[in-house]
């Protein structure tokens, strides 16, 4: 008549197992709302900071600049959010972007017409994602290791494709997205695409059975399987989706810069992961919201932009994602740290009492 089945006793101070992690990490539904409120507050602060920094902050020109600086990275955060929620990770996102970009340049320089290039590049992106998915779901390899490998591999293929060449003779009808905002707004085309996609991804995540199943998979893969959710198939789709979206981002990136060169997008994956984690998505999977990620996009881009407008040394702007990331993971742990410290002290006192009683 015990409340627990006959299993080994839980070790006293160990990280809780699958299924308990989310709850233990304090990332239940209520704390997530707290997180988003925090992000919203941060966003407002960013606006305040920006306005204070420069009268230019809220001008159309600057806002446009803010959009194009983050557009492609923002787009890439969307499928990565899904992937991280299921407990996996995809570090090859920027390399798929780079591969797509290189492919655009390569095909263009070989005379392909643009309407043929775009679908071809998207298809290659899907394949790249499928390769990731295959290694993770069929071969059973950890996604961290796999995507570190494909990160290098796809970047390498991009390098092979273009070599030292720089392709920059793209038609203005495409590259104007790097110069002109969407008519009547300050949004860049990439930002618009991001917002539209974010809406779609958000609706799927929060309002469809598919989205619900992602949370279940991330929180407890076994229970999800027992509820009839096809875990492997879903993960495969997610990696393919990531490949598709990242190659789209790569195409946009190429047009925005109007250049295809082999190191396009180098290092961007860390930005993307930082934003998703900053958005409240737990690295362990099972929790997170699209609203949080969108807010995080704005917070990161906004902070960088605002600081850029001040006298903050431009070269040090790279610190921002790192600092924000650290703060975002330390903050929830701070309260549990205090709790654990108290627990530790209490146990020492108890032990002392027992020892005293024995002697």
């Amino acid at each position, binding site marked *: 008549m015990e409340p627990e089945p006959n299993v080994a006793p839980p070790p006293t101070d160990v990280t809780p197992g699958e299924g308990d992690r989310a709850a233990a990490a304090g990332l239940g539904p209520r704390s997530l709302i707290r997180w988003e409120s925090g992000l919203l507050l941060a966003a407002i602060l960013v606006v305040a900071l920006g306005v204070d920094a420069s009268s230019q902050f809220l001008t159309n020109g600057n806002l446009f600049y803010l959009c194009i600086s983050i557009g492609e990275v923002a787009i890439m955060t969307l499928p990565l959010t899904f992937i991280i929620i299921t407990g996996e990770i995809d570090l090859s996102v920027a390399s798929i972007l780079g591969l797509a970009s290189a492919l655009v340049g390569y095909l263009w320089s070989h005379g392909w017409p643009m309407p043929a290039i775009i679908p071809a590049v998207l298809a290659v992106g899907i394949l790249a994602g499928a390769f990731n998915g295959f290694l993770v779901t069929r071969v059973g390899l950890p996604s961290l290791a796999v995507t570190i490998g494909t990160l*290098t591999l796809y*970047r*390498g293929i991009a390098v092979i494709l273009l070599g030292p060449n720089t392709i920059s003779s793209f038609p203005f009808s495409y590259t104007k997205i790097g110069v002109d905002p969407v008519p009547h707004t300050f949004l860049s085309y990439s930002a618009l695409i991001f917002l539209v996609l974010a809406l779609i991804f958000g609706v799927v995540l929060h309002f469809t059975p598919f989205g619900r199943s992602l949370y279940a998979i991330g929180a407890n893969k076994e229970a999800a399987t027992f509820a009839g959710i096809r875990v492997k198939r879903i993960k495969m789709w997610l990696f393919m989706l990531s490949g598709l979206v990242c190659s789209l981002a790569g195409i946009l990136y190429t047009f925005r810069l109007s250049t295809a060169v082999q190191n396009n997008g180098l290092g961007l994956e860390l930005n993307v992961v930082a934003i998703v984690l900053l958005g409240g998505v737990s690295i362990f999977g099972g929790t997170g919201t699209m609203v949080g990620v969108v807010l995080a996009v704005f917070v990161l881009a906004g902070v960088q932009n605002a600081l850029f407008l001040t006298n903050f*040394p431009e*070269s040090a702007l*790279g610190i*921002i994602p790192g*600092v924000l990331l650290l703060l975002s993971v330390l903050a929830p742990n701070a309260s549990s740290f205090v709790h654990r410290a108290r627990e530790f002290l209490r146990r020492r006192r108890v032990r002392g009492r027992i020892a005293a009683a024995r002697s």
Partner: protein
Amino acid sequence: MSVALDPGPETTAPLAPVSPHRLVDLVFRVREFGIIAVLLLLVVVTASIQPRFLSLQELQFILLDTTVFALLAIGETMVVLTRNVDLSVGSVLGLAAYVSANQFGTHPGTSIGVVFLVGAGIGLACGITNGLLTTIGRVPSLVVTLATLYIIRGIDTWLVGGGEVVANSLPNAFLHIPRATIAGIPVLAIVVALGVAAAAYYLHSFRSGRELYAIGSNPDAAQLAGIPIGRRVFTVFVVSGTLAGIAGVLWAARYGTIDSTAGTGYELTVITAVVVGGVAIFGGSGSVVGAALGALLLNTINSALYVLGISAFWDQAIAGLLLITAITIDQMIKVQLTAALRRRSRLGA
């Protein structure tokens, strides 16, 4: 849970002479031997096409290139063994390279020893930060070192400004360090090889070294066994950081010109080397010798490509393929091995 359905009484005699111990041993060794075999093959093939590959200078280059990565690989191996990862090593190397080399400029007359201490000190500080955040902050090391990768690189970029340290601002004695040789072998390579051997010995023969394997193999059981996980994990990050700092100084001595991009991307190369070298990505098994050999293999491939006139542009793709192949093979071996060991278990004594 499986129940053995025995139709009759079982033999108590132990079976086939090939004990699981030897099988594992063989597979284990296969990794190091495998890499050496691939290396030899690569060298032979390349040399037959392009004999100048076997020139002393070329071989010295390869060894020197490897020393930096081998040094990083020692620290990274220890981190990965405990089921963690250190992504900040490239940034630490870059920062240490700049700051230490810059000492010559800002403090003329600084001794080389002091410069090494500065580099190591920077690495030490970074390692302590990573260690504290991972253990006391309870933040997953992937996230911690991702953040510090940014922050340290950012600090480096800010310090460097638009400038750089150029070779002719550095004392000759310093720049000569990588060029010193004994019987044709670069001294640095010998020193680092000794370092690898020392690390291997530590991991093999000391309690705390073995505990690193235990932590990665089964963190829950490690906790139950009373292993001081926090302390061990903190230490490996400190070691990784310090070694990256020293590697930065060596890098500076080698290349002479240091800007804010020094060491960019090195963490990925090191992790590739470590995994190719047989260290499991989730820890628990692997050797520093294997990791160092992995670094050697990667660098040899790069040099071979260069010498063969194949554009160096193939090296990344090859490295990526190597990593994927290595972990796939590891997985397949693990599946086969577990089945084989289980079969032997069931039948043997």
